[in-house]
């Protein structure tokens, strides 16, 4: 794929090798144009004015919702709630559904693979409600231990939260197996963190069979500050509001308030319509490529990166085999700390992430403080891997690596 020219930041910096798309993606011109166009032609507060400009803003906001819902396999667009991103979506579920449904003695199951965004909200909910937090451990190669998950499930389990793809290791979790295991052994709801899956392969909420799916627009070519929560209508209608204020109300009496219908019940305040329009353009761009091709491209990038990095003496790659990973390669180099590696790579124009990847519980289990992580997306090509390998060699040279 030759898409680099579509991304102004990359086109303007031909020597930049951006390998941190798991943190945030670059944005194509069409997305930037769509946001600008909204402000230049349709800007007014949606759902408010009787005048036609406000109606136009409302329509464009709605069209974006329909477009994004279709992209993620959601038939009923009212079941897509716009949020700031995955973190807010998961806090919404824990704060609204969780507060209303979790009681003393209940059990919440999460996994050792989680990003802090799908870990801390559940931990805090458990502390607040005197519920028990149980953590599904991993196999040696960084996959969820489904036998252990099965042991954790039971009549007290109320919610099972897990990611679709690990941001730290790239592990793709078998959602269908997990959902079946959960429904066979408990009445728990399932919450899927889709921050690292929605950008990278075809996702259909309806086929996943989970109760909730959270995602971030900025990791899938959209603007920062807009993502979503998808839930079943039944669940969303039963849940109390998450925030209160304008737009989410029906009638406000002096002593009580009734709530607006979905999705507005969960979207208090002026919505981020411009960024929704931007994300609408992003999913249209991705559809133009075809998510199957996006997946193919990343698989071939991963296979190449895996082969070339594994050939470097002293380099250790974490996580399951590349066929069971998506878009992420997490590694350490003997004697060169990930932070030093990232600084030296930066000197070569290569952007990678170094650190704990917001997954401290996972890092503790791997007994490492940090890894270096390269992640790929539609605009990367073999030259980015060339630069990554050259940068790693440079780091070895600086640190005076002597083969054992």
């Amino acid at each position: 794929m030759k898409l680099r020219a579509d991304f102004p930041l990359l086109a303007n910096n031909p020597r930049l090798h951006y390998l941190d798309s798991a943190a945030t993606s670059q944005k194509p011109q069409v997305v930037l144009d769509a946001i600008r166009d909204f402000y230049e032609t349709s800007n007014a507060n949606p759902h408010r004015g009787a005048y036609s400009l406000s109606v136009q803003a409302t329509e464009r906001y709605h069209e974006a919702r329909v477009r994004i819902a279709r992209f993620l396999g959601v038939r009923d667009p009212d079941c897509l709630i716009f949020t700031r991103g995955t973190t807010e979506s998961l806090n919404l579920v824990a704060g609204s559904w969780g507060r209303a449904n979790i009681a003393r003695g209940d059990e919440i199951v999460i996994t050792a693979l989680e990003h802090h965004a799908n870990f801390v909200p559940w931990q805090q909910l458990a502390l607040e409600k005197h519920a028990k937090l149980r953590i599904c451990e991993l196999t040696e190669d960084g996959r969820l231990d489904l036998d252990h998950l099965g042991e954790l499930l039971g009549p007290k389990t109320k919610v099972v939260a897990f990611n679709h793809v690990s941001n730290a290791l790239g592990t793709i979790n078998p959602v269908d197996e997990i959902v079946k295991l959960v429904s066979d052994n408990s009445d728990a709801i399932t919450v899927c963190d889709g921050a690292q899956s929605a950008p990278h392969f075809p996702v259909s909420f309806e086929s996943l069979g989970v109760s909730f799916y959270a995602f971030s627009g900025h990791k899938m070519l959209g603007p920062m500050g807009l993502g979503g929560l998808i839930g079943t209508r039944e669940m969303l209608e039963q849940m109390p509001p998450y925030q209160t204020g304008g737009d989410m109300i029906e009638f406000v009496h002096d002593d009580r308030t009734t709530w607006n219908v979905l999705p507005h019940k969960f979207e208090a305040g002026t919505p981020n319509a411009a960024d929704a329009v931007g994300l609408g353009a992003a999913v249209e761009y991705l559809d133009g490529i075809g998510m199957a091709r996006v997946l193919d491209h990343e698989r071939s990038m991963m296979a190449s990166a895996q082969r070339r990095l594994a050939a470097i003496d002293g380099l250790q790659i974490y996580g399951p085999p590349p066929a069971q990973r998506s878009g992420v390669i997490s590694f350490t180099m003997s004697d060169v700390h990930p932070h030093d590696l990232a600084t030296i790579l930066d000197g070569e124009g290569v952007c990678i992430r170094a650190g704990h990847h917001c997954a401290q519980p996972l890092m503790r289990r791997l007994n490492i403080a940090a890894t270096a992580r390269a992640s790929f997306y539609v605009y990367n090509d073999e030259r980015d891997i060339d630069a990554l390998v050259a940068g790693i060699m440079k780091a070895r040279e600086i640190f005076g690596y002597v083969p054992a």
Partner: protein
Amino acid sequence: MSQPERSAEIAALYQEMILDHYRRPRNKGTLERADAAVEMKNPLCGDEITLQVAFDGDGVGDVRFSGRGCAISQASASMMTQLVKGKGAEEIDSIRNRFREMMLGDPGAVTDEKLGSLRALSGVARFPARVKCALLAWNALETALAERGG
């Protein structure tokens, strides 16, 4: 910034003295008898350091550090322990303040002889994301000395 300029800055950052302290850290280990022990973490990267101090009067009689981290944090801790051992609280304060100024890019600090070998770390100022690494040990020492001061 051009690529060669950045490469030169990287070379200045990872100069031999830093790498030497990283490979052969001085005063790494534990004290048999410590008056204060401070554990400090860099939440950004998960690096951690434990600094043990045996006081001598209001200053540092002996000092050791343990933990794990990048070349910058390890070299900074190693050089710091060498420099502060046997010095009084006031002098250590003054060195620490000067070191912080150097990390903020103060050109006067870079030539200040009281920083001794620490001046090898002056290149860190060009890498704002790494300043915290260089300051980790110093923050631990400040906490330890505050315990002494009450």
